């Protein structure tokens, strides 16, 4: 719990330094060979998503253009089904679980011929907000859903 509090406070105070950090991180060219391990290992809720999206995740706006379907209550945190769909041309989707040890869960990048839809099953350590980000042209939109977890799915 102490660690959580520390993280939260460090995220609040560290926003500026984190913002500076984005510029320094190498731009991810998502070829099959590259895997942004740093982004997936990031411990705060937005920096990983910002890295893979190439935009500041904190600046994303809630929008009806993206829909996130997730259960209100998940009895088993090891298998939480989520479904994301977007309305319009979408380059990339990123899924974040705020309170997981490593919040960035999965991403999807789309080329011509693929619509902006993604579904999968994810693990959640505890009750948390699930946030789906979508990069649509030059705007970044998000949708949030809270999932209550009665048994965690990370370690243990």
């Amino acid at each position, binding site marked *: 719990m102490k660690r959580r509090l520390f993280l939260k406070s460090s995220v609040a105070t560290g926003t500026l330094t984190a913002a500076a950090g984005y510029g320094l991180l190498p731009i991810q060219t*998502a070829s*099959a060979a590259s*895997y*942004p391990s740093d982004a*997936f290992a990031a411990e705060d809720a937005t920096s990983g998503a910002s890295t*893979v999206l190439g935009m500041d995740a904190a600046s994303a706006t809630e929008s009806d253009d993206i829909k996130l379907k997730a259960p209100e209550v998940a009895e088993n945190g*090891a*298998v*939480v089904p989520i*479904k994301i*769909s977007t309305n319009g041309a979408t380059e990339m989707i990123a899924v974040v*679980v705020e309170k*997981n*040890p*490593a919040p*960035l*869960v*999965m*991403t*999807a*990048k*789309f*080329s*011509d*011929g*693929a*619509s902006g*839809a*993604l*579904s*999968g*099953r*994810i*693990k*959640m350590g505890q009750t948390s907000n699930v946030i789906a980000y979508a990069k649509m042209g030059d705007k970044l939109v998000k949708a949030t859903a809270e999932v209550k977890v009665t048994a965690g*799915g*990370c*370690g*243990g």
Partner: protein
Amino acid sequence: MTTKIKVKAKDVGHDILVLVKHPMETGLRTDAKTGEVVPAHYITNMAFSVNGTQVAETMLSQAVSANPLTTINLTDLKAGDVVSVSWEDNTGTSESAETTIK
């Protein structure tokens, strides 16, 4: 590990469902018998192609459930198109599967 790919026609385009039998270990879990930490073992990249051209790529992490079922939607498929998926995990194992649109 086995990979299954399935195509479902939808109102808009086709859904591509990919089911991989994979442990997706987080690296946080300890083995109850030995007390040792089970090393992380998870799928990192998953690439979707139509007739050999990549149309979508998903990246997964430890926080994706074991035996992941991943679904995307493709809009421009026609009969005879070959849809393939290939994945790679953090230990370098990879596998692929393909199916032809009827």
